[in-house]
């Protein structure tokens, strides 16, 4: 049984925009999936269905074979979503406070909240910045803070929506290392991006959305040669292998 599954997932906005249409996908435990697509192809809308932030117009999302709506809090604990714009995700005035927001929502006892905050900040290497104001962090640190805020919920699946936008080279490397580390520690990773050259070497699978439809789903080395048909740059030069597609040395 798949860990997370969408069946005929369709979302039509009130203004008539068909954002995603009949998407059938299965994600298995421990997978590292890259979801690509041009601007406006429906990636963000798709991601927001996976933890029930948006309600489908048609179709459904299953987690461990059960509809996510059955226990929405449990779903949101299991499926962590890191937002495209990290600023909108920050609610705390200090780094530690922000990470505590999730566990406090779960009504954990104070000592457990403290422990999980400490652990999450350590996991992303931000412990020494715990008293800083989040808005003074660098781009890469902000992304890692957003990841820590999600880690504090102890999710099984982590969805990252465009984690590299606006980051410089060291920022991308920081975040990339973090994501690979999360995968190693047993998390299932769904990574939304159109910058395949930064990450694809680490992925098991490449999914492409185009105008709200699922158009490709398979091994990166099979799918990548067709990506340009859907507005996603094909980063391989002659003779290069998918393994070359990473910004890590």
């Amino acid at each position: 049984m798949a860990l997370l599954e969408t069946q005929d997932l369709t979302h039509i906005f009130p203004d008539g925009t068909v954002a995603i249409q009949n998407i059938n996908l299965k994600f298995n435990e421990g997978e590292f999936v890259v979801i690509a697509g041009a601007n406006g192809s429906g990636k963000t809308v798709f991601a927001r269905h996976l933890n029930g932030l948006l309600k489908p117009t048609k179709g459904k999302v299953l987690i461990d074979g059960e509809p996510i709506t059955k226990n929405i809090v449990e779903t949101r604990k299991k499926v962590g979503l890191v937002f495209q714009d990290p600023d909108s995700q920050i609610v705390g005035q200090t780094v530690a406070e922000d990470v505590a927001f999730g566990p406090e929502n779960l009504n954990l006892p104070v000592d457990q909240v403290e422990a999980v905050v400490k652990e999450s900040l350590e996991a992303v290497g931000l412990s020494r910045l715990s008293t800083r104001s989040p808005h003074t962090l660098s781009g890469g640190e902000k992304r890692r803070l957003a990841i820590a805020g999600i880690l504090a919920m102890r999710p099984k699946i982590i969805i990252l929506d465009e984690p590299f936008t606006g980051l410089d080279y060291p920022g991308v490397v920081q975040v990339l290392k973090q994501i690979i580390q999360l995968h190693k520690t047993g998390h299932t990773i769904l990574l939304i991006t159109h910058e395949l050259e930064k990450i694809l070497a680490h992925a098991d699978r490449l999914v492409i959305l185009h105008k709200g439809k699922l158009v490709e789903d398979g091994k990166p080395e099979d799918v990548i040669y067709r990506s340009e048909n859907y507005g996603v740059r094909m980063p391989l030069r002659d003779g290069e292998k998918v393994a070359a597609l990473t910004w890590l040395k």
Partner: protein
Amino acid sequence: MTFFHYIHRDTVLHRMDGRFKLLCMLLLSLSASFASQLQHYLVLLFVVTLALLIAKLPFKALLKDLKFFGILILIVFVVNAFNIPGDPIPNFPITSISLQGVITGLRFAARLTIIIIVCAVLTGTTPLMTLRNVIEWYLRPLPFVPEVRIATMINLTFMLIPLIFDNFAEMMKAQKARCVELRKNPIKRINFIVFPLLNQTLRRVDEIAYAMEARCYSEVRTRAVFKSNKIDWLLLAICLSVFLFVIL
């Protein structure tokens, strides 16, 4: 602006129990509003300046920001000086200013200054989340008051205000870069700012709401634990004595 921003330091005031701190600050503000004699103001000014120094808040930067409030304080002073009827000041050319007016004006100016410093110390030494938890704690015993909701609302409001200001400043700059100054119609210019700003703010609020929901926002949440010690009681006692000194 350094004013009204939390500045992390390790001082007695930063470590102070938030409940006591809020109560102390309320007492001092009340004392300022009730103060009537010169020695009251001197004692209060001494206490709040001491607090400012103990808190190790950046004194110079605060003074610089105080300029903005200086205008406000000046207006309060001038309005009072001109509007309170009384005897004219001897040997002073402007006869519409009365002695009583000047004294009342000074009084109000001093009150305002003290209250502004109190607010600066409170916000400078207390993270918003603590302040939020304190408010929640005080509201908890009241029946029919959704204390968690109110506290969260206060929290979000305080968080959004600086974001909106930043946004506004950015938009002004971007529009200046496109020569918005050449437009002479002020209504049009306001339109160019207000609607996009409102739009962006609403969008932002939407995003924040989604992000909070993604992290399971719930009103049944971990309650903050407050711990008080002897120092908290001592500081409260000091503020209480100042208050009693002023009203008695």
